[in-house]
């Protein structure tokens, strides 16, 4: 059964991001002019404002750069507390905020290797695949 989640931001380039996730791919925007990544989705490169962006597939490999665990319920019970969030440094460089799939903050060692998974979720706009990370 799909897991309930707070609403995504949709529209414009966000839709392309979630469409990739639906195919089991994590793709981020990369600039053809300065070669840097932008995340979250943008209309033009966040570094050089170029409009020459393409959606590049990520390997799904990364390491933990930070974490925090919510004890306070900010979402009116949609997500039962406590729950954990992690900041993953993707192999390609960008920092990607996500959830741990098969571990908790207590298991985290600095720089711990993780790999991409998808979890079936739903919000008020419908079902979607949420990128999360498991121990590598």
């Amino acid at each position, binding site marked *: 059964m799909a897991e309930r989640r707070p609403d995504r931001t949709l529209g414009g380039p966000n839709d392309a991001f979630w469409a990739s996730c639906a195919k089991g791919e994590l793709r981020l925007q990369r600039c053809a002019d300065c070669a840097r990544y932008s995340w979250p989705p943008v209309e033009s490169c*966040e570094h050089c404002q170029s409009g020459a962006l393409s959606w590049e597939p990520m390997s799904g490999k990364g390491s933990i750069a930070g974490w925090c665990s919510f004890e306070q319920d900010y979402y009116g019970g949609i997500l039962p507390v406590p729950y954990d969030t992690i900041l993953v440094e993707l192999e390609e460089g960008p920092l990607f905020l996500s*959830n741990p799939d098969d571990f908790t903050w207590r298991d985290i060692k600095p720089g711990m290797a993780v790999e991409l998974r998808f979890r079936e979720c739903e919000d008020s706009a419908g079902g979607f695949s949420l990128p999360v990370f498991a121990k590598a």
Partner: protein
Amino acid sequence: MSGYGGAVEMPPASRTLGRRAAIVGVGESDFHDDYQAERTRPAGYRAPDLEALMERAFERALADSGLSRSDIDGLSLCCTYGGPEPADMARRLGLAPRYAEATGNIMAGPIPRITADIVDGKADVVAMIFGVTPRSGGRRYGGATFSAGLGPLSYYYYHPWGWSSQAAHWALMFSHYQAMYGAREEDLGAVAVQLREHARRNPNAIMQKPLTVEGYMASRYVVRPLHLLDICLVNDGAVCLIVSRAEFARGAARPPVLVAGWSHAAVKADKMQAMVRDRLRPILQDAGARALAMADVALSDVGHFEGYDASTIHLINQIEGFGFVAQGEGLEFCKSGGMGLGGRLPTNTCGGNLSASYMQGWSQVVETVRQLRGEAGPRQVAGLNVAMTALTQTSQAHPLIFVKGD
């Protein structure tokens, strides 16, 4: 004209604007009493409304300045969550200013902006009034409160992963800091304890009970690794600063405090990197150096610092980022008393956002004025001539340098 909603367009750091304006009056609402009343809600209690709070702060600042109502020829209002029409507020306060405007909100730009207006001849003496009522208004600082178009991207984009709130920003920073430097929660607790000690020397501070590291550790987690006492207060209140042309301030009722330097720097890209990994050091270094250069003082001249303590760890970001101490040494500096009265850099001496009042950077300026005047009573920093305040959020830094005038 920016109104209440937008960022204030501030003039860039320039020596020609340094020491041209002085703060000659300060006033605040009753942070402690209003907070207690709002919590206990005695029978018949009604929280003072925004305009009443702003009026109270104004009357105190006016009395403090020794000026008369007719001396005030400019009115500048800053209300983060909306506020009165400036002309209506001027009437309410019995003022007939040459201009009355809604300048902005948090302490990110209004002082440079008003200084430039004074230098341009738009007014000689401006009453700047800030007011907010987030507590009685039930404002929440996380969750679905923020969505596209309402607040910075990092406040809403990560909703599907459940990541939101001010506290989450600081929590992510501290978990990274722990991994880098081996800091423990108890070490961070020293910051909350130090600021509470300061608050207990300020009768208008909201939090007056003694705090120990054990008491800090016993406070509930909001977002691990941060406890409730790592996060700033949320309260209603108002602050007024009366700012005058510097030459007009000579021989005023109180020693004038000169606005000597400022600057501003913002994170433009890679926000998570800037916030979590860099802990804003590049923008703090850049903005700090330019503000000091404008004021023509050195970092080592700064004898008192009022940082933006939205969180304990964020105060440490600023102490380290501006270069008062080396990277990774901020918590040891605090534990050894460096931020206390008598330490090398007395910091947030009125109790800060954590223990005194959360006035979005405005109370820090009031405390700086009191310290430079030598009127801080039991929390006075001895022999002070140069002080620094900083409005520092998750993606911008705005340091201000103040010096004692004559």
